[in-house]
């Protein structure tokens, strides 16, 4: 088993359907134990890429390695190491949720004892006890997504592929999903996730944007924000006497400071810990009241990226 820093790697990954190129020369690297957001508009090639990564679809060209396995050569071998949740959670209709769980446990070769232990944990965590006896087709979408997410981890895989796990999920459950994803990552599991809720990009360690099957951005969310926006604008409400003092305190180190009718305004490319520390000191010693931070949200950045890529 390899201990390489990257648990997923692709080189020149390409998929053509007839004369349509769905995925075009894609090179990505996913760090072990990280949360990797894979984003793009509908039809940009996200799901096709995931299906190749998990060995369900054979690429036209390129190389894929997942958890040390050459996926193109051994498409089946990778499946023991991964958990996958598709856009449409695959539960068998006509079977109850519990029967579905037993079916999947059988596929993964889980012992009865392991199944009992794992499922009681997951059932509790995802509040699925009440619907365990319901048939799959009777589960509302939000609950089906919860069940789908729980099922990805029955066999404790090292890599999770989650294709829009939060689509159609309410805000409260989305927060719980992400809390759980963060816990998995903290435990060393790598999470490869797609979403159309752009605020979720900021919950991830890394983000790759694709359009028309090609990579158009690939970096940490903050680095992308820095590149495609004017960064952060911080308004500090301050009494007149303090404005000059705070300006000089915060002024150096590439911070743009202006005075406003209510205090000072800083414009900075990023909110790094050093700057936050100095801001904290100012707020504790000087500021009477409010701090307001404004930044460009990922929705806007995504639009900018797409517009540039399609120009």
């Amino acid at each position, binding site marked *: 088993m390899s201990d390489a820093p990257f648990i997923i790697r692709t080189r020149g990954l390409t998929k053509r359907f007839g004369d349509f190129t769905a995925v075009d020369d894609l090179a990505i690297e996913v760090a072990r134990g990280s949360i990797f957001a894979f984003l793009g508009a509908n*039809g940009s090639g996200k799901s096709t890429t995931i299906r190749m990564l998990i060995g369900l679809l054979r690429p036209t060209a390129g190389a894929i390695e997942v958890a040390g396995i050459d996926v193109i050569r051994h498409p089946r071998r990778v499946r023991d190491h991964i958990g996958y949740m598709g856009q449409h959670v695959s539960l068998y209709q006509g079977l109850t949720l519990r029967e579905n769980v037993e079916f999947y446990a059988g596929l993964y070769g889980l012992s009865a004892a392991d199944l009992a232990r794992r499922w009681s944990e997951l059932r509790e965590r995802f509040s699925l006890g009440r619907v365990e006896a319901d048939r799959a087709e009777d589960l509302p979408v*939000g609950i089906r997504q919860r069940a789908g997410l729980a099922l990805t981890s029955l066999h404790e895989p090292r890599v999770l592929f989650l294709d829009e796990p939060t689509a*159609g999920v309410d*805000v409260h459950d989305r927060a719980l999903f992400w809390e759980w994803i963060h816990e998995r990552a903290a435990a060393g599991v790598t999470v490869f996730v797609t979403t*159309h809720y752009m*605020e979720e990009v900021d919950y991830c360690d890394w983000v790759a944007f694709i359009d028309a099957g090609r990579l158009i951005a690939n970096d940490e969310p903050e680095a992308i924000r820095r590149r495609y926006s004017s960064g952060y604008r911080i308004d500090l409400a301050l009494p007149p006497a303090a404005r000059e003092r705070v300006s000089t305190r915060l002024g150096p180190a590439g911070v743009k400071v202006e005075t406003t009718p209510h205090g000072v305004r800083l414009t900075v490319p990023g909110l790094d810990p050093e700057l936050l*520390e100095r801001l904290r000191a100012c707020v504790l010693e000087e500021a009477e009241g409010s*701090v307001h931070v404004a930044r460009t949200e990922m929705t806007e950045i995504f639009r900018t990226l797409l517009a540039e890529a399609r120009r």
Partner: protein
Amino acid sequence: MNAEGTAPSPAFIRIHGLEKRFGTRRALADVDLVVERPEIVGIIGPGGAGKTTLLRALVGLLEIRASEATVLGHDLRGDVTGLKAATGYVPQAFSLHRALSVEENLRFTGRLHRLPESDFRSRAQELLSITGLEPFRGRPSGALSGGMKQKLAIACALLPSPRLLVLDEPTAGVDVVARAEIWALLERDKHRAAIVTSTSYLDEAAACDRLVYLQDGRVKADGTPAALSAATPLAPYRVWGDDPRATARAARGLPYVAAARASGRFVRIEVARALSPSPLTLQRALATLPGAMLAEPLPPDLESTLLALSRGLTPATRGGSSGGARAPGPAWQ
């Protein structure tokens, strides 16, 4: 609710005491919903709250019980054939004919509704151009991307210019750009039709004229997004620092913190207003949590509102005790 209208015209929706059971399970109970003018009504709530069931009931797909249940003048407890012809419905699962092209799906819908050819042509052309589906008119609908499928489904629903449009999570799994286009399509029709839609996106909920919050099959709140947010007993804070996950864990231990959610650079913390210290003290307390550096109050929004509703928290009242006379506005039940 009083109609601020002029002459009495039949309401779009007038439902009182609606109940729906599936076997022994009660999916909807005691639901009141009155829509008297064209507007966008958002149906929101946790998974399993009954949103889909309510939407299906509105278009006459379910047998229900109610003390009153008329939609566009048709009684839901009687013959609903006429209602189905007058309503546009977009269910959660894509239900158009995959083998038919974009244009053929529109034509099929036009025939079902017996639209005269000239009306069909002009209306279909209009919808193809505003949805951006024009270049794809010959493509089989099964081969469209997720966002385009939804645009086509909505275009088909809008084709006969229905007075009521019912949509079940029309934008789930749809990208930001297509979502904005779909929303613009709805906005365009909201002056002549009542639009009832479920959504899990907070930005879409905020764009509705009115929100109905369902939980456990019951209507727990009904009001404009602004009124619901203003009444929420939670105040959101954003705490910036170098270890948001540690900050979130510590925050959850504070007696006045209802929830804490870590993002990349900050933690969003929901503070129960009635229990919290003064704003300045609170700001300092939050900024000194582990991993935290700067605390920033945010204006109340729907995220706090929905969290409060899901926890059954009642609005903040001055002086602490709840109950008694309530100000008009959002109804919290």
